[in-house]
């Protein structure tokens, strides 16, 4: 009987819903739950692909009465391991967020003042095209900067920048994973995945995998560790969730991870515990390595890392004994220190000498799956060279991605040439880059700024024109192959029609292209694009399959050892795995990882370190009402010993000052951090009033972080800032 009563209540709540529902979404995000609920009769389930972070998990949207009711995990994608995290679940609230940009807007007050005029799309396009044309005439197309972050529709934006003739496309990697990609790429000619599902011994440093969720690594590793299939050794100045779950945690001295790895190499080689057959067959430069690491004894490393030599020796032995199923995990976001590239290189080399390459439980080169390509009219290469001078400053870095911080320095100096227009897609340089003061200065120097985004980010807040993009649940995107040990092809299809006057990025790009005389390069629809991609999927009825399932993963089985034939040619200069890299040497870098001490903070300062929690990754997620309630405000972690010395009390506000800025933030006095470090979470202290939950609440790390980068990859080095902490 009870269930019938339950249903009756559902029914009562539904009555009279239809009229209220449409209006309710305009007012606020919760109303529709009260009034807009429909009977289950018209419920639909539509598979799609999550966009809240770069993992691209497969999800199934439950739509009732035209509203997204819930997102469920889609078990068909082996990479996403039949789960949807807090962020993925909260994507519902991304759509129904009252803070969304609801129509195009042109700034009417001063930049950052927050005075906007809602305009038609035509007006926004015309205005932007006119401004871009003016800049082009005065400074050439290279006088414009096009910056974007990762996503399925990013390519359209990048293409517009290129078709416009600008060489200055800058993407997210040098704020994220450029150093790890370059280090592994230099060594193996490719960036492998890590088979956490089958590994027996995992060492992790410079990554917090149980809070920074990466699929399938996070899920595979927690299973392996807790089912006692794998041992996890974890190095981190902070007692993170990963530390709490690890078998061994070492609060390593920040920036000394390279010393730890070099000492492991020393032990494994000295004790001849490396995989001799593998090293002989597949690698280049082992003898030089053996000679090179003799200086890096465990006793020496103990002084650098504060990890006891006996533990380094034991861990090295255990690691080598686990052999092909031992992993020194690479991490993903690798923007920590100025030596980051060499630290990741050392990891790659350590993995190499135990022979875990292309083995079950080891590093596995990514498998891929075929899909079709949509062919469009190509444009001429830009005439000017890049403003960040990647080729001369970072000869090995990926020039097409740019080097963000060097780029900002050059733009601010006006050399080698001026940049006066800035187009931004879905990125918030105000919070993603260190030293917000410099970014603000760069904004001031611009004649024009246009931003495409879902929400009024701090960057959008300082723009001249804002184009509202449709949320991922409101649009269809290009098909994407997700390479990996368990590769999948994923498809994101429209789940509901846009609830505001927004457009998918492609249509925004096309609107601009039309007015810039570039329409010929963008004369297609998303449906034509997607259809071409479906065509080469080697499955019958590919389009129908993808629309019904949202994902195709072939057999979903892992394949190991395809590259383990002596005649396999690695995509490196020598065709071998390059322990010693001539290419590095030729470009003036250390061909083997050389240890240089990272500066440590003076007694009256702390090193500021960063990290993530499972429910926030990007700066915009703290304003999602379903995530925000877990952490309404960020705080500063500080160890009780220095806190007592400074008279800092838990929960009270402190000032945190670096050489470039200062912020006011609540102190969290906690044992869970080294006494020489402080930590804060990203995504708070917003300047945009349209991030209403976090506007002026807590502090933004970007305000106090200083500018520094890894020498080889140009990747931002976020852990080099020393701060003073005092009572506010």
């Amino acid at each position, binding site marked *: 009987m*009870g269930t019938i009563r339950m249903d*009756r209540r559902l029914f009562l709540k539904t009555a009279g819903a239809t009229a209220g529902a449409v209006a309710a979404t305009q007012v606020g995000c919760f109303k529709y739950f009260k009034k807009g609920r429909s009977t289950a009769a018209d419920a639909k389930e539509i598979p799609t692909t999550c966009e809240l972070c770069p993992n691209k998990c497969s999800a199934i949207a439950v739509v009732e009465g035209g509203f997204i009711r819930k997102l469920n995990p889609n078990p068909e994608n082996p990479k996403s391991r039949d*789960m949807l995290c807090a962020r993925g679940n909260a994507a519902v609230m991304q759509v129904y967020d009252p803070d969304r940009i609801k129509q195009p807007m042109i700034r009417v007050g001063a930049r950052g003042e927050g005075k906007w005029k809602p305009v038609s799309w035509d007006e926004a396009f015309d205005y932007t095209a006119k401004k871009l044309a003016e800049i082009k005439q005065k400074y050439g197309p290279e006088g414009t900067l096009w910056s974007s972050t990762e996503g399925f529709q990013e390519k359209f934006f990048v293409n517009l920048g290129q078709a416009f003739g600008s060489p200055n496309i800058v993407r997210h990697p040098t704020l994220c994973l450029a150093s790890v990609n370059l280090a592994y790429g230099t060594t193996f000619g490719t960036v492998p995945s890590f088979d956490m599902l089958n590994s027996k011994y995992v060492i992790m440093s410079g990554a917090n995998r149980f809070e920074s969720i990466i699929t399938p690594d996070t899920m595979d590793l927690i299973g392996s560790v807790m089912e006692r299939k794998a041992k996890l050794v974890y190095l981190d100045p902070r007692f993170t969730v990963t530390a709490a779950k690890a078998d061994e945690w070492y609060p390593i001295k920040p920036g000394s991870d390279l010393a730890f790895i070099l000492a492991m190499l020393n032990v494994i080689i000295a004790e001849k515990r490396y995989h001799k057959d593998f090293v002989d067959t597949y690698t280049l430069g082992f003898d030089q390595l053996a000679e090179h690491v003799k200086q890096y004894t465990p006793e020496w490393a103990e002084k650098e890392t504060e990890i006891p030599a006996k533990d380094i020796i034991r861990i090295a032995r255990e690691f080598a004994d686990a052999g092909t199923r031992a992993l020194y995990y690479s991490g993903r976001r690798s923007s920590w220190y100025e030596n980051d590239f060499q630290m990741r290189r050392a990891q790659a080399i350590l993995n190499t000498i135990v022979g875990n390459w292309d083995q079950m439980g080891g590093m596995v080169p990514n498998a891929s799956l075929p899909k079709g390509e949509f062919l469009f009219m190509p444009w001429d290469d830009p005439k000017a060279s890049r403003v960040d001078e990647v080729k001369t400053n970072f000869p090995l870095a990926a020039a097409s991605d740019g080097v963000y911080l060097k780029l900002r320095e050059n733009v601010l100096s006006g050399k080698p040439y001026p940049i006066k227009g800035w187009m931004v897609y879905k990125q918030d340089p105000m919070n993603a880059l260190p030293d917000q003061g410099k970014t603000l200065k760069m904004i001031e120097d611009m004649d024009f700024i246009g931003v495409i985004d879902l929400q009024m980010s701090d960057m959008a807040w300082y723009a001249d024109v804002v184009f509202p993009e449709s949320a991922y649940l409101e649009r269809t995107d290009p098909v994407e192959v997700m390479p990996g040990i368990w590769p999948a092809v994923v498809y994101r299809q429209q789940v509901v029609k846009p609830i505001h006057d927004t457009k998918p990025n492609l249509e925004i790009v096309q609107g601009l292209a039309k007015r810039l005389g570039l329409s010929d390069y963008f004369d297609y629809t998303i449906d034509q694009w997607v259809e071409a991609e479906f065509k080469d999927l080697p499955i019958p009825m590919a389009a129908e399959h993808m629309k019904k399932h949202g994902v195709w993963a072939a057999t979903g089985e892992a394949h190991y050892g395809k590259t383990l034939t002596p005649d396999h040619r690695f995509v490196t200069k020598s065709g071998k795995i390059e322990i010693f890299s001539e290419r590095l040497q030729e470009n003036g870098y250390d061909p083997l990882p050389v240890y240089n001490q990272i500066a440590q903070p003076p007694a009256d300062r702390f090193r500021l370190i960063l990290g993530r929690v499972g429910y926030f990754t990007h700066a915009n997620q703290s304003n999602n009402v379903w995530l925000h309630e877990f952490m309404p405000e960020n705080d500063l972690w500080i160890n009780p010993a220095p806190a007592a010395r400074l008279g800092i009390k838990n929960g009270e506000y402190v000032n945190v000052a670096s050489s470039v800025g200062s912020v006011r933030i609540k102190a969290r006095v906690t044992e869970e951090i080294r006494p020489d470090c402080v930590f804060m979470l990203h995504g708070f202290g917003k300047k945009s009033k349209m991030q209403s939950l976090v506007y002026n609440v807590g502090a933004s790390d970007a305000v106090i972080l200083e500018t520094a980068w890894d020498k080889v990859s140009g990747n931002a080095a976020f852990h080099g800032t020393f701060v003073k902490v005092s009572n506010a």
Partner: protein
Amino acid sequence: MAMKKKRYALVIDSRKCLNCKACVVACKAENKVPVGHFRNRINEERKGEYPTLSINFEPEQCHHCDEPSCVRVCPTGASWQRKDGIVLVNYDECIGCRYCMIACPYDARYFNEEEGVVDKCTFCVQRVDKGEVPACVETCPSKVRVFGDLEDPKSRIRELLATRRYKVKEPQTGNGPQLYYLL
């Protein structure tokens, strides 16, 4: 055909819990839980002094007890229990007196001010009755919770309880809680 007897329960492997909150948000979406309230939560226990530290996370929600004290104290019969063990609130009969909230040993209930009724985890009865698992169970990245029928000898939860050590919380209350935490 006679209906087979069922007894739903959860087995929870807290050690795998990463405190990522996926279960909390999934529940919020599935059950329209208002912002500021939760039907489930993750309890945290942080211990030790640097550098000897530990953190334990423990998911918590209604334990769907065999002898639920919330049902016993309810003056109107709004709190009631299905034959399969699921404890529910009949919102039409709830007068918002909140005795059940005091009686619950697990603080698993909340008062919905807007509706004037008490609310709590239902094991996602709307899903379970369709043969699906509760939203918190399905969405979890590390699959901390296992949902099943204790009357089914072939169920995964029976297997886990037969082969692993476990505890229930607050057994001394005599409530007979049906959330089993693996040790």
